[in-house]
Every structure is written in structure tokens, then in C-alpha cells.
């Protein structure tokens, strides 16, 4: 398991969108999927998950529907909407640019000044 990483404020939505983009998933499944794809580094607090899901659904980035889970329970599954896919692509690009910029900054040498 990777060392634990703290989510920067504002990045939870991005991570959730990524998790949902990999396939329809219910709320608890989002938690598990984020833990899985982050190698255990990101553990989302349960108290912030559902407000984030409802916020994303309110904005039209994800859409929910009721279905039966693998455990034969009635669950609400979320999928990414077209608007969500566009927004995610945009955010992912912005995040990548930020990460590259920070990485470049952190590896700067005195010769580059």
C-alpha cells in the first residue's frame, strides 16, 4: 500500500469523477475504488463523500439511477454525464499542468536560475 496522501481541498471532486469515469458505481463503491486506484494512499472520509456526490449530481456532472447490486441490494449507481466527461477532461488537464509545474519547480537546480 502506498503511503497515505492528504487530498488537497478541491481535489476530492476530481478524484471522485475519475473513480466514476472507470465505470458505474454506487456510493460505497466510490470509496473502495478511490482506495484501490490510489493504491491505498487516499482514504476518503465517509462524512464528505455523499455531500460531494450530491454536489456533483446537482451540477449535472454525474447522474444517479437505482439498480440492484452484486449483493442483491438496491443501490444508487452513478455514472459520468457528457458534461461530466468534458469537465473531468478539463480538470485533469489542469491538474496535470499543475503537477508538472510543481514537479519542475521542485527539481530546479541553481543552474536554472
Amino acid at each position: 500500500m502506498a503511503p497515505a496522501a492528504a487530498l488537497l481541498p478541491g481535489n476530492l471532486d476530481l478524484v471522485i469523477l475519475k473513480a466514476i469515469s472507470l465505470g458505474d458505481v454506487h456510493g460505497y463503491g466510490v470509496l473502495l475504488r478511490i482506495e484501490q486506484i490510489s493504491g491505498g494512499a487516499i482514504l476518503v472520509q465517509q462524512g464528505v463523500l455523499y455531500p460531494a456526490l450530491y454536489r456533483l449530481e446537482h451540477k449535472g456532472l454525474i447522474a444517479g439511477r437505482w439498480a440492484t447490486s452484486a449483493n442483491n441490494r438496491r443501490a444508487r449507481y452513478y455514472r459520468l454525464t457528457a458534461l461530466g466527461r468534458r469537465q473531468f477532461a478539463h480538470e485533469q488537464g489542469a491538474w496535470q499542468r499543475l503537477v508538472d509545474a510543481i514537479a519542475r519547480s521542485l527539481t530546479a537546480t541553481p543552474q536554472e536560475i
Partner: protein
Amino acid sequence: MLGPPDWLSVAGLLARARSVYRALFHRAALEQEMREEFRHHLAERAETLVREGLTPDAAHARARREFGHEGTHREQAREALGLESFAQLRFSWLDVKVGLRMLRKHPMLNLAAVFALAVGIPVGLAPSHLARALEAPLPGDAADRLRAIRHWDPLSSAVAPTWDGEFTFWAQTLRSFSSLGAFRTSSYNVASVDGRAAPAAGAQLSSSVFQMLRARPLLGRVLEEADFVAGAPDVVVIGHGLWSSRFGQDPRVLGRSVRIGRNLHVVVGVMPDGFAFPTNEALWLPLRLTSVGGMQERVRVQVLGRLADGVSAQQAEAELSSQGPPPLNSPSGAGSVNDAGERARLRAEVVPFGLLYLGLPAGGLAGLPEFRYVQALMFVLMLVACGNVAMLVFARTATRLREFAIRTALGASRGRIVSQIFVETLLLAVIAAGVGVLVFNWALDHVNLAGLAGESALPYWLSLGLTRETALSALAFAAVSATVAGVLPAIVITGRGIAQNIRGGSRVRFGRLTGALVVADIAVSVAAVGMAFAVSGHATDLQAADRATGIPASEYLAVEFRLPEGASTSADARADDGAPDPLRVQLAAAQRELVARLDREPGVRRVAVGDVLPRMEHRSRPYELDGVERVADAPLRWTRLARVDVDFFDALGTPILSGRDFVRTDAEEGSRVAIVNTAFVERALEDQDPIGRRVRFPNTGNAAWYEIVGVVGPLGVNVLNADRGEAVYLPAALGTINPMQLAVHTVVPPAALTGRVRELAMAVDPDLVMGKASVLSDVRQGDWYLVMGLAAGLVVLVGVLIALATSGLYAMLSLSVSERTREIGIRAALGASRGGLLLTILKRSLVQIGLGAVIGLPIAARSVFELTGTPDGAGSVAQSMAVALGLATGIVLLVGLSSCLVPARRILGIEAREAMHADG
């Protein structure tokens, strides 16, 4: 949080709207889904923990601990859905309780606010209420399937005649109506049990009308098919009022013969109280139409129909339009090419019955630009009332700053406080709306609206009482008022910092807007009282009216006579086989004999006969002048038109100012002469010599030119504005004016001759029905009622605005004194004079009152000068000016004293020692 403005996209906005809608209107379902989702989450987590080795109970417990409080999750979820702002606006019964307490705490302020809204809300509602009442279904027509069919003349914007032939044609051809009926109204001399005859309004109905109205008799029966067969006995159905007044509600009235005019009619039925179709008729006779097999005398009728099942009024009108007019020279058709040309211009319409009666366009009152203007004006007045109430609410709310600050510190949001103030104001507005509507309803029941409109009674089907739609509209208006008057001040008041309010270190300032409202109230009051005085003075100026009339109207008795059961005038009806019209013959004989007998009567000087008299409403017609080029498509000019006996001007003692008077031969068939008045010469001919010029009246079925042979004075065509009363007089042969108006010039008080005139008329011809009789100086044109109504409205407006200005000033001054008590005490202790103290506090209010008066006085003075100035000189103008200025000064003093007196006494009563302990 995601960065770019995704909510700007249409998809994002739609998603948000759907989400809010679901959260607001399907909240229970949303909450249920949340619970179910959380249950699933907990179940899945517990299962995971069980797989990790916990017992089921321990797993569930730990899952719950990790998840946290479910209520908190739901609250956060609601926040995420943007519902917090809506949650803050929730209402509770506590708000209502607090609202009631506030009503008791500031009684004077609240009374002023209730008064303002109790006037403003009904005023705002009145136009739409009236429009709905006029288009309401007839009694007994709950499904609203009855409609009138009429012709509308777009050129004159008036109803055009409908003839019996057209009714017959429609009855045979229209499929949109399951039944059609025709009717016409007249007055009849009805003999009482004691043999004395008196006029009664009645109607002739075709056979289907009673069935269409679904009217059931109180006694006997209604008219049946057998009553309409040629040669059937003459029968009559009488109304409840007639049965009571003439027959003493005798249950044996059925089968009795009653003399109506010359003929005996058998009473076959009595209608119940409240039935008076079509307006206020008291008896009903069969309408026997004979327009079959060749042209007969044309009879003017009105048409009523019941729409067929599933057919709308619009569909019926479409069928009517697609049919066109009846073919020429058919039993149903128009009689001449001129008629056909004129009829082609007319538009056949299917309208609610009320529009037929009032002659309104198809859109009803709402179709009149003037009505929309009035509606907007009334709505603005309501908003003005709301604005003033907002000022009062602002003052009332300003005394509670510390309360709001403490509540805010305890967790109440701004939205919550604003919503509470909204509920308090809504309570005020609902009470005011209720009071206003109830008073309005009471006034409708107790004020003689018909009398104000110059009528004997309102139509029986016109119900102006409170309806469900009006009550709901009043509530809606109350909500709008509460929003304007409560929410806006509340938002301003609650925009201040908490700490500031708790310390009480600053005061509420009444801004420029409130000051402007007070100034505007006083300015409009002063201007309005001057206008009301000027308007009503002008309308009641007897001297001016007499000048415009040209004759001493107080010496004339104006009486109407008509012969029923015939065409209205000889210009409208003719017998195509060339035989004299029997009605015309009868009327000519009656007119000749009646005038002769009246001339011989002691106390009578002369009798003038015309279709209209000076001071009465003259009908208007478009005209053309010979020799004046008319631009194509340019609108025609209009003039008043009157048809008069050849002795008319001589009998009135009116001098012929130029040319000559009518002579007997001018009334013969084929003669085409006219006399015009001075206003016509001035406005139509631009003061050129009119003698020999020719005038005609296109679009009236008469293309003949009339040669102008004489000029007379204004003759009361427009009493309020003689210069705009142009008129053309045409000579009428004996028996061609029906109804005819007689002006009986008396040497005794005219009203004293009324009974004698009736006796003479009955002796001449029992069929001759005498209508309204009044002294000519008491006759009012429609404009007079409009003007007096305007003056009354202005007086009410003045009263409302004075009350609002007074209460607003009082509120502001009281608050100011309360807040500055310590300051006043300190100044007093330091030796400030009482006058100086008063001036300090009252200065602003006195300036506002003075400014309002300065703005309003010139407008009031101008109104007085324009409307009461006379050619005789400045004396009367100065007098009127003095009265108007005196009234305006009175307003200023009234407002000033009322609003400032109590606060001034409080200021003078403040002791320095007490003031030091005051909070302000």
C-alpha cells in the same frame, strides 16, 4: 472544488434547475432515497467488516460509528443541493404570532398602513374585476355556452345593426350553434288594474330564447311555438316586478287580459324575481318575424345563440366569417348595392352577452387602450401605496435593530429574519386586502352605481360582487404588497453589522427615497385638490353650461316618446313595395297631434322635436366636404349629427346666425339641405363661409350630398367644451323620428307639467310610450359623469395621500425623537431654547412639507386657471384661484400639524436629567 464555470452551460443550468425542482417539490422522496442510499452504504461497509472478521453486530456498530450521524449527512447533502437559502425562508406559526404582536404594538402606524393598502389593493383590482364581471355568463348559463352574434363596424368602432333577415339566414345555415334566437327591446304603455297606463320596459323574443336561457316561470308558462303562429292570440309573459306593482302579486293573473298600448294581451306566465332579460325588461312578447318570400319591412334585432357541443366561440366565429353576408336581393339579404357595400365592411363577431349590451369591442374592456391605461394607472397607485407602507414598515422595523442583532448572534440567518418580517407585513397586507375587499363589496351593494352612470338600474345579469377570482387576486396582490413593502426595507435594515446594532451606536437614517416619497405625497395632494376643485367646478358651472347650450335650459322639459313594434327610424327601415310605412303614418299623426295639443296648453310656449336635444349625447358620423381633397386611406373626420323637425330652431328660440332656417319643403323626400353650428364652421370649414357648401356622410348607406343653408350657435352639443361640439342638423319629416325627443318650453316650472304631458300623450295615442322626462338643465352628457367621476377619484386620492404623508412623517419624527432623546436633553441642559430644539428636530420634515407644497401649488393654480377662466375677465379666475390655494394651504397645515404636533410635545417635555438615562 472544480474550477471553470461549468454552470454557465445550458446542460449545467438545466441540471441545477431539475435538481432544485426535485428537492423543493419532491422533498419527501428525496429524503427517502437518501436514507435508502445510506442504508445500503452501511450494509456494504458492515459486510466488509464481517469479512475482515468482526461479528455482525460489531460490524454494524463500527460501520455506524465510521459513517457518523445520518442527519448531519442529510443536512450537508441539502446544502450541497443549494437548498439552504430556501430553508432559511421557511415560515412558522411563530412568525404569525409575532406579527400579531407587532400589530398591537404600533397601532397608529399599522392603521395608516392598513388604510393605504385597503385603498390601494381594491383600486388595483377594480379594473380586472369589472372586466371579468362584464364577460361573465348569463344567469342560468353555468357552462357559459350562450353567445351574442353581432356586427362590428371597424370604421366607427361601434356595433352596427343586425337585421331580421340576417338572423333568419344564420338560423338556417350556421352549424356552430345548436339554437339561435332574436330579440329586440322597447317601451310599452301597460295599463294597471285601475286602468291607468304607465311605461314599462319590455322585449320581443323569438320562440327559442326562453329555452336557451333555461328560464322557468314562477307561474304559468313561457312563450311557446304556438304563440308565434300568424293569427295566434296576443300573449305576454310578465316579470315579477310588474306582477307586484301592477297586479299586487295576484295568483289569478294568468289568463287575464292586460292592455299594452292599444291591444289586449293575455297573461300566460309570470317570471321569478331576478329575471329581466336582456337587461331590465319587465314583460316579454312574441317576436313575429315575417321576412319570408320577398322583401318585407326590415326589423332591427339582436341575436343570441347557444354554442353546439364541442364548439368554441372562436370556431363559431370562423364559420360566421367564412359564410359572409346573406346574398343580395334574397329574402334574407340586404336590399341595395349601397347596403351591400356597407355590410361588406362590417365584421360578424361571436361575443359574450355583456359586450353586446355595452357595445365594447371583441376584447372587452381589456381591448380598449384607455382601459389598459387605467389598469396601469391603478396598479401604479397600488405600488405607490406599497411604497408608502414600506416607509412605515421601515420605521417600525428600525425600532427592532437590537432584537435582530441578538437573534443573529444566536444563529438566525439574514434570510430567516427577512422571512419573518415578510410574514409580519403579509399579515398586515392580508388584513388590509380583506378590509378593502369587504368595504368595496359593501360599497357596491349600497352605492347607486346605476344612478351614477345615469341609468335607472344595472343589467340584471351584471353582478359586481366579490368573486373567487377577485378574492384570490386580492391575496396575490397582498403578497406582492408584502414583498414590496416588507422585504425590501427588511433587506436594507438587516444589512447592518451585528456589533454596530448591539452597541446601538448608530442610528437608522431615513434616506432620500423616504424623503422623496413624503414630498411626492404632499405635492400630488396639493395638485390633486386643485385639479379636483377645478374639474368639478368646470363641470358644474351653470353659466358656462348655459352659454354652451344657447338656450335657458332650466325653462325646458325634455321628454322622450316612442312607438314600439316597428323599425327604429325611417332611415333604417322601408317597405319596398312603395306603400307608406304604417308605423311612420301612425307616428306622424301622433307627433302632429301631440305638438298641437301641447302648443295650446296653458303654460307652454313652444315645442321643439328632434332625435336629440341640446345637452344630450349626439351621435357621431364620419363626413366629407365637397371641394376638399381627401387623401386616400386618410381617416375620415367626424361630426355630431342630429335630425330635427323643421320648426326645431324656431321653437327653441335659437337665432339663425347666417343663411336661413329650415322650411316645410326641406323635409320632403329628395330634399337635401343641412344647417351646421358655429363649431362646425370653425373646425371643419376653418371659418370660411359655409352657405352653399355641401357635406355628405359616407359609409352610412347614404351617399347624397347635403347643401348647407344656415348656421346656428353651439346648441349644447358639447356642454363642457363648446368649441369642440361641431354638429350638422338635417330636417326630418313628420313621423320619421322614433324615439323622438320633445323640448317643451314652459312658463311654469317644467317638472310641474310632466303629468299633464303624459295625459295628453295617452289621449293622442295609447301606443305612444313616454320615456324619461326631466328638466333640460338636469340632462347630463356622458362626459359629465366621466369628469365628476374623475373629480371624485381625485378627492379620494388626496385623502389617501394625506393620510400616508401624515403617518409617514409622524413615524419618522417619532423615531428621530426617540433616538435623539439624550442629545435633546443635553442641548436643553446647555441652554438651548425650546424653539431651537423644535427647529432642530422638525426642520427636515418642515422642509419636505414646504417643498411638496411649492411643487404642487403651480400645478393646482394652472388647473384652476385653465378650467375656470372665463371670457368675462379675471374676477372669477381670481376667486377660484383663492379657493384652490386655500384648500392646498389647508392640506399643508393639516399634514404638518398632524405629523409634527405629538413629536413636538415630546421634545418639549424632555427633561435633561431623564434624557441622560435614556438609551438613545
